């Protein structure tokens, strides 16, 4: 710990960024050094607050490292079965059509286990918002390959990197969903650098606005760092993400409102 220093003189200063949104009951979490998920958590909670949805929304959260948000964010959550969040969210939305119902899922949850659910619910054009935190690994269970692991990406399944000949190719589910009629908005963001973070916040906002306006299904994929899963030092996570994930999954709005 650094020696206690002179308190910062903040007279004449205005705060432009708090430590964390008030909606997070604690800033402590057990995610790894350099993990991108907590950045995404912060954006989700900030957007719910900005859009005045805090007491009018329910999050349906799958299984992964990101699940811990259900113990820290002061909004209502339903922790559901791996992959099934879009179906659960659809059932909720039908009974509570004037609430914002959204999912938070990892890539393993949404694209491996839950591929049928995301495609079916998107095709139905349900006005729910699905969020995928994509790092190309099953982080919570040890770092194995998922259906979105990019070619060449290191995971526990193969630390030499995914080879297409052995494991096939990743599934860009956001690109598929963007083509379906009844889908109102699809975007892919990332949290590896501040301007990507800023764009991702706007994408999240657009997605929730689309739901509130009843325009149809919305999906935001957020590429997040997992240095532990990728076997890189924490301070190289952002660079590795750009080389592997951002390079495979183009960022931006795949289906604009």
């Amino acid at each position, binding site marked *: 710990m650094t020696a206690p220093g002179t308190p910062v003189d903040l007279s004449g200063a205005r*705060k432009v960024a708090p430590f964390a949104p008030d909606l997070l009951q604690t800033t402590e979490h057990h995610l790894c050094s350099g993990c991108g998920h907590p950045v995404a958590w912060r954006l989700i909670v900030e957007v719910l607050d900005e859009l005045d949805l805090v007491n009018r929304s329910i999050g349906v959260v799958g299984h992964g490292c990101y699940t811990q948000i259900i113990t820290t964010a002061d909004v209502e959550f339903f922790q559901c079965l791996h992959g099934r969040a879009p179906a659960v969210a659809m059932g909720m939305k039908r009974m509570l059509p004037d609430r914002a119902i959204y999912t938070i899922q990892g890539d393993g949850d949404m694209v491996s286990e839950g591929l049928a659910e995301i495609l079916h619910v998107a095709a139905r054009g349900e006005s729910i918002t699905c969020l995928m935190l994509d790092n190309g690994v099953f982080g919570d269970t040890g770092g194995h390959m998922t259906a979105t692991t990019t070619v060449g990406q290191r995971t526990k399944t193969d630390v030499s990197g995914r080879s297409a000949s052995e494991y096939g190719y990743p599934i860009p589910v956001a690109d598929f969903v963007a083509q379906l009629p009844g889908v109102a908005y699809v975007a892919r963001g990332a949290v590896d650098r501040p301007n990507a973070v800023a764009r991702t916040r706007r994408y999240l906002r657009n997605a929730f606005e689309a739901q509130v306006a009843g325009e149809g299904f919305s999906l935001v994929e957020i590429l997040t760092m997992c240095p532990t899963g990728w076997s890189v030092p924490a301070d190289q996570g952002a660079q590795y993400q750009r080389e592997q994930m951002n390079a495979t999954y183009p960022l931006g709005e795949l289906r604009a409102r």
Partner: protein
Amino acid sequence: MTTAPHHTSHAPRGTVVMALERCKGCGLCVPVCMPRVLEMTEERNAKGYVLPRLLDGCTGCRACADICPDYVFEVYRFDHVDALDALDADADADADADEVH
């Protein structure tokens, strides 16, 4: 625990307050800091992680807060000079133009 910016000979444009007890030493803040005023030190917190230090020249751009997974940074700007605000606007415009792809 907070750290103070070093003594500076001209009025600072911004500063940060850092909750270093929860820092996990990932180092992501260092390369994103646009004025390059964050550097990792050899100091460690109770969890054993190495910690960043703020040098002179913070502009309060909040890039560190945006990227930090552990919510270590609280960012402030000093509003005393209009010209400095204009400089801030230029810096933000540069950031928006920065290509991500």
